[in-house]
């Protein structure tokens, strides 16, 4: 194998249980986002745009769709003779089958994968976040600061700091303390779950951590505190720009709505930093004579005959005559029937909202098949 300067390890095995039934059959990184993407497209595109061409994708929870979506990585130009994308699910060995028990354990189990490329640096990423970031700049910073570990951080509002892993730093941006969800935060620099390690250090500490029966084998909870206690040089890399963990139905909806904001920092139209995705090969969208479309993002293959305001429509969605769709996210191939009124909702893929229905609530509603059936039952009982 050809030696690589930096290998990326992308953690994509998470369930994202707070996304409710959206992640019943697929891993969180595979959840649709932004009219044509899946969440993992952002991290994979960041890798390719940053010149990182060797990416191990660690999968575990509901991997079928994720595996077929990633394929050999051609959509992100990561189908390479040397390196490229390698999907790394848990495997069995002579001593038995080992599920990934934590983020650090998942990397530990794939030390052999990384060793093939004899890298100087390993970039640890999560497939759960929406952001655009040049990892090459972070790597330059890591080298310049002569760090053992560099952790990317973002300023969060002080009021929300207690929800994050907070890095307490000195003036040189050296990390002196790490606090997971502190009740009284001393700082508002939150970890983005993006780490660059010098590979020899990472390898050594993964082995130490793995031998510790009391460890939960998690980077944030175990490995980073251990490195700090051993006085290793940990440096914070301040990131400015859009970054969102779409962990809940509400935050997924908000992140989609952010794209409709003219001032949004997340620009999908930037040709120099394309977000790549697997192409659905559908014809252009058709907007009919009676349609009204404003403040919306609409993908190929859509047919709009009704009214779409401030919404995100994925490929192949059909909005029938007289329907009003407002502040919604409509996922691929879903049909909104005639004269439906729907507001503030996320509708997953392949669902048909029957004609004439009104869906409107104060909270963001996830309109699933089960929810629709329950509505039907209620109607029958009342009727």
């Amino acid at each position, binding site marked *: 194998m050809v030696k690589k300067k930096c290998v990326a390890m992308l953690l994509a095995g998470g369930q994202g249980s707070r996304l409710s039934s959206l992640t019943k059959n697929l891993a969180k990184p595979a959840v649709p986002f*932004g*009219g*044509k993407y899946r969440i993992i497209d952002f991290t994979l595109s960041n890798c390719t745009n940053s010149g990182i061409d060797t990416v191990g994708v660690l999968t575990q929870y509901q991997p079928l769709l994720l595996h077929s979506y990633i394929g050999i990585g*051609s959509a992100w130009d990561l189908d390479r003779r040397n390196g490229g994308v390698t999907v790394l699910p848990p495997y069995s060995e002579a001593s038995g089958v080992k599920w990934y028990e934590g983020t650090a354990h998942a990397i530990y189990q794939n030390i052999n994968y990384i060793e093939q490329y004899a890298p100087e640096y390993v970039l640890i990423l999560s497939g759960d976040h929406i952001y655009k970031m040049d990892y090459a700049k972070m790597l330059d910073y890591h080298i310049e600061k002569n760090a053992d570990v560099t952790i990317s951080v973002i300023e969060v509002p002080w009021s929300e700091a207690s929800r994050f892993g907070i890095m307490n730093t000195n003036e040189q941006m050296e990390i002196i303390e790490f606090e997971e969800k502190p009740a009284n935060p001393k700082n508002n620099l939150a970890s983005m779950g993006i780490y660059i390690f010098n590979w020899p250090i990472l390898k050594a500490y993964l082995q130490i951590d793995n031998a510790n029966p009391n460890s939960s084998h998690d980077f944030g909870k175990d490995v980073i505190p251990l490195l700090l206690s051993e006085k290793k040089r940990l440096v914070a890399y301040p990131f400015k720009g859009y970054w969102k963990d779409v962990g809940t139905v509400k935050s997924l909806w908000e992140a989609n709505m952010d794209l409709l904001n*003219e001032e949004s920092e997340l620009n*999908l*139209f930037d040709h120099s930093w*394309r*977000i*790549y*995705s697997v*192409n659905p*090969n*559908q*014809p*252009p*969208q*058709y*907007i*009919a*004579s009676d*349609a*009204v*479309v*404003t*403040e*919306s*993002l*609409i*993908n*190929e293959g859509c*047919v709009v005959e009704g009214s779409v305001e401030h919404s*995100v*429509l994925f490929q192949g969605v059909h909005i029938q005559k007289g329907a009003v769709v407002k502040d919604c996210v409509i996922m691929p191939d879903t049909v909104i029937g005639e004269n439906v009124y729907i507001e503030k909702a996320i509708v997953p893929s392949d669902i048909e909202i029957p004609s004439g229905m009104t869906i409107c609530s104060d909270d963001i509603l996830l309109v699933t098949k089960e929810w629709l059936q329950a509505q039907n039952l209620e109607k029958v009982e009342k009727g």
Partner: protein
Amino acid sequence: MNKMMLGIIDATTYMEPLQQLTLHRSVAAVPFAGRYRLIDFVLSNMVNSGIESIAIFPKYQYRSLMDHLGSGKNWDLNRKRDGLFFFPSPDLNIPSPHIGAFQHFEQHIDYFLRSKQKYALICNSYTVCNIDYQAVLKRHIDNQCDITEVRYQGRSLEMFVLETSLLLDLIANHAQTGYNSIVDVVRDHRHQLKICDYEHHGYVAVIDSIEHYFQHSMELLDPAVWRQLFVKSRPIYTKVKDEPPTKYTASAVVKNSMIANGCIIEGHVENSIIFRAVKIGKGTVVKNSIIMQKSQIGKQCELDRVIIDKDVKVENDVKLQGTEQQPFVVRKGTVQGEMINL
């Protein structure tokens, strides 16, 4: 292997009436239907009919065609065996009044000799439709035809099925027989060959002039038409561009239009076809027009019956007006300013 066909696309055609759109590209590479090139239709039809070996014979201005097709990956034609072949004509002086000129094929005869496919399908590059060539072949075999010609309402679509061995004979003997192309053979009645017709049902557009280009483009806005062209089970493939979804701002008004990805629509668009990554500025009204990829239309413009080729910049406050028969065509990569049209 018995029912396998070679796909042969004759892209040598030059068309005077399409000249304004073919100064920098071959007819096969003319943009159509918001995100496609003309050749995508015949190529996708072949792929969807199970054809795995496709040879393209280009002649003029084929840089953009090659750029579009690449390795054939987007059509699943980057195969170890067979796949996509590109056979430019080494001699620009060969006369080619008709599709399927044997002299063009003769220059690349090795391809035909090496191929194992029993049948060959010869098509032009500018007929837009969604057709299953397996059905044509089945009829051809069932009726024991020598050559089957696909027709639509009595008119030839310049698609021919024949045995590869017969094609080889016709190529080898063209000097003796006087048949210079497959069209010559089909039109002549002095031979013993059984020529059959196959009537295609479904939408067809033959793009052979600016007027027809404009007319057929506008027809696509009828849902009954595009439903015949864009069939879910037989998709039309094209080069992937990774454009984001199209953005409609608060001031956008869009009626009866086909719009590709990556556009930013701030103005008024009616009865129009908008290609990928086009920007339509605020206060601008675009009616009955075709705007090709990456063109930028400024603010407060009025465009009616206009074809704007790719990479055009229309500055603010510009008025452009064409007619049904003679749409106003703006050439690729040019700038249309307010001062220019005064």
